[in-house]
């Protein structure tokens, strides 16, 4: 049985449907990330799991216990759901010291003083906060505040961790450091974690599964690799990956008994799509799945180098062909010059196709 089960969850704010009939199960011990552009309803889902927001419809079960059910009029308050939440803003109480912040939940639960003392100290030590017990949150750096927020969540020993973009307020270096910290936390505490972010790298590196949301709906919930490789639809394909995936609209045609994809700027043989002849489709290729060669050759297509964007270990090369820009990822540095004519080589197996109208991926039976 899954740890968190969500069924048909809906939340409206006035005219806006923030979350739309969302159904999702999170297995025990899993690290699930809710990913999506800002405003797609991630926070709202998290808050509904936590019990801070009352859904309009649907049901939520945590650890087999129903904590919300619209039809049964059931609502378990946040403190009784056995979940811990780290807010995007940390929400540390400014009038309490670090120790008081962490101890608050235990005080409320009337944990005996000696035990509380020990638990709080442990949690602080675990988050490397020794010696800062008596500081106020305002007197600490962002990273330290983040640690306090985590310690505050940990100390109550929740079965489920909920985190809402916990790293978004940190600078890049700290972010990586804290990412490791969170991963360690998850591994050692073995708590089921639901993590919200709009940062795909974070999602892909941390999670055991990524759930992508779009305008309140769940689009795809699969392991990171699959999200990247086999995006459920155009939206996911476009959203995941940086630089973004190359999209080429076109059509499946039959020529000389062979099936081809015919796009404006590209033509590819696609034997696996024989069943789709005549359909409008969009071909999608990850930047790293294109190879660039100088000069023309075989079935490669030519283009003109439009821009070269070095990024340390890799270089993004933009190639223009027939008015369309292709992103190409090249490992290391490159000696290409702008204006140079180059050849792009596509690996047909690496090209994914989406239905032209609905944008769903066309299953080619590969992989």
């Amino acid at each position: 049985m899954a740890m968190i089960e969500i069924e048909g969850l809906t939340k409206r704010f006035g005219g806006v449907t923030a979350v739309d009939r969302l159904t999702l199960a999170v297995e025990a011990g899993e690290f699930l990330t809710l990913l999506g552009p800002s405003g797609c309803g991630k926070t709202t889902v998290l808050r509904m799991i936590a019990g801070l927001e009352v859904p309009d419809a649907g049901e939520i079960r945590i650890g087999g216990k129903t904590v919300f059910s619209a039809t049964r009029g059931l609502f378990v308050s946040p403190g009784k759901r056995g979940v811990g939440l780290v807010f995007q803003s940390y929400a540390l109480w400014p009038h309490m010291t670090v120790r008081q912040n962490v101890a608050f939940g235990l005080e409320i639960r009337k944990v005996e003083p000696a035990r509380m003392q020990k638990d709080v100290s442990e949690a602080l030590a675990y988050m490397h906060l020794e010696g800062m017990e008596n500081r106020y949150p305002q007197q600490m750096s962002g990273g330290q505040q983040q640690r306090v927020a985590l310690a505050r969540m940990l100390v109550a020993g929740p079965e489920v961790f909920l985190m809402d973009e916990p790293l978004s307020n940190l600078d890049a270096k700290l972010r990586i450091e804290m990412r490791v910290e969170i991963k360690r936390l998850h591994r050692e505490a073995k708590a089921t974690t639901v993590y919200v972010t709009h940062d795909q790298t974070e999602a892909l590196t941390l999670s055991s599964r990524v759930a992508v949301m779009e305008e309140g709906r769940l689009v795809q919930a699969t392991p990171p690799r699959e999200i990247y490789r086999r995006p459920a639809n155009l939206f996911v394909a476009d959203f995941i990956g940086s630089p973004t995936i190359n999209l080429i609209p076109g059509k499946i045609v039959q020529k000389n008994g062979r099936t081809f994809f015919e796009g404006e700027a590209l033509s590819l043989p696609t034997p696996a799509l024989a069943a789709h002849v005549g359909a409008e489709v969009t071909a999608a290729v990850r930047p790293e799945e294109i190879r660039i060669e100088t000069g023309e050759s075989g079935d490669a297509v030519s283009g003109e180098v439009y821009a070269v964007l070095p990024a340390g270990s890799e270089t993004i090369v933009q190639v223009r062909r027939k008015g369309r820009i292709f992103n190409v990822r090249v490992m290391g540095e490159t000696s290409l010059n702008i204006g140079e004519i180059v050849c792009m080589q596509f690996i047909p197996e690496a090209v994914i196709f989406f239905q032209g109208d609905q944008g769903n991926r066309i299953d080619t039976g590969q992989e």
Partner: protein
Amino acid sequence: MNEKSPFVNRLGLKLKQPQVVLGLLLVVILTGLVVVPFLQLVHDTAVWQEADRRMSRTAEPGAWTLFHYLRVFASPLSVNIFYRPLLHSLATSLTISLTAMLLGGLMAWLVVRTDMPFKKTIAVFAVIPYVLPSYTLALAWLDFFKNERIGGAVGICTYLFGVTPPDWLAYGFIPIVITLSLHYYPFTYLLVSGALISLDSNLEESGEVLGASRFRILRRITFPLMLPALISAFILTFSRAVGTFGTPYFLGAPVRYFTLATTIYTSIVNRTPAVAYIGALVLILISMVIIYLNQKVIGEKSFVTIAGKGLRRRVTPLGAWRWPAFSLMAALIGLAVFVPLLLLLWQTLMLYPNDYSLGNLTLHYWIGKSQAALAEGESGILRNAQILGAAWNSIRLSVIVALITGMMGILIGYAVVRGRKTNLAVVLEQGSFLPYLIPSIAFGAIYLALFSKSIGPLPPLYGTFFLLILVCVAKNLPFSARSGISSMMQVAGELEEAGMMAGANWLQRFRRIILPLTLAGSLSGFILAFISTMRELSLIILLITPETRTLTTMTFRYVEQGYSQFADAIILLIVILVVGGEFLARRLGGKRETI
């Protein structure tokens, strides 16, 4: 089958939200404190009252009648009991508001935008007149300008200069306008200086770059930007002035210069309450019209903050005018604060009024033992059980009211801010503003109407201390609600939600998280309620009974009986208590923020 309908579920869940429960509760309280009394007042104007039997043999207590309306609006008495007082009310309030705006605006500009010497000192003293009871100046005025007309000793003016001040200078319109303008100008000062501080000089400088003259800039850029603040100040001053009772009574009654507020009082004393209630309705109407006009004229702009980041303030050099400007401001503050207080002090030290010789100085009115030959044998105020009792009442009342109002302010802030823009929150926010529309004396009249009878299981509250608390709490709500809302805005919802996650119930969250975080921000609400209750007269004058006397009503009584020494001594006592109380509160609470 036994599943509840979704609607019921929804409602049940809603009712579990503290801001909803609290909001509903507060709306109910507000209804009880403001709406119901108001309806009762309207009702009472249209039915025969017990006391009407004296006026009409056909009076049938409880039955509907237009008698009171006819009496007020269309009888031989109308001119004297309504039209003339109405005219006086409008004339004084308008003149006061304009004069106060001029004084306060000028002072604000000088302090914020010029190189006048001792700006800081002026700024500190600028708001003191507002802290004094509004009629302090009136009593001081009488001590100075009193002529034989009102009897008793003539004022110091006659003694010093040998000339008797004419009636028009001693009583009526002129002194009412002067004393109340000096009392109310801090409103404008505070609002305008606030606006000037947050007005970016860049706006003016960009005008300068375009080659506009300084005067032109003042007129075309600065003034329009100040307009919302000025208009707010006008409204605030006008609605206060029109409902104030003490000053117009002390300075107007000797020459029968009555305003609506004083007419309301005399009508109640004459036991024609319905007439008073109609007067109160008219006052409310005037306030509403003014506020409505305000919104029409400046609309949304009224609370726009012009503040930007890193704003710069430009200082206008006054040149040769530096010292004259300072002298003028110093004189203003001297006249509004120090001269009156000294006059009052002097008066309290005179054994016989009218005798300004040194030999006549005495501490009798402060600490003297009862002497049959003096003031009906009353002992000095610090020995006088009645006055000490009243002082205790005043302190008790002010502290309790400050605590309750401040607390309600925070709760209202909570329900409004957490309720976001739900209908309930909007109703609550606007409802808490209602008492502001009702002038003080009218508010007192309303409470008298409602609470002199038993309501359901509630016994008549007239004559109880509790009623005074109720009325003061209700009247002070708009201000404390405002400061409660703004301080709650500073507290992110997530801070409370973090408490929910920790399993804290509402009370725990409120006590441990919300209260500590809002208290400092709401302090001004507490202090304001304390001060205004401490010096409140108009609001409670109709509701006071012997056991519930406060210092202010004692002053009033002594003025009426012609014992100015006692009256003045009590005023000084009030001033000491107010200043002391404010000081204490600030010490306890920290930062300064007025109005």
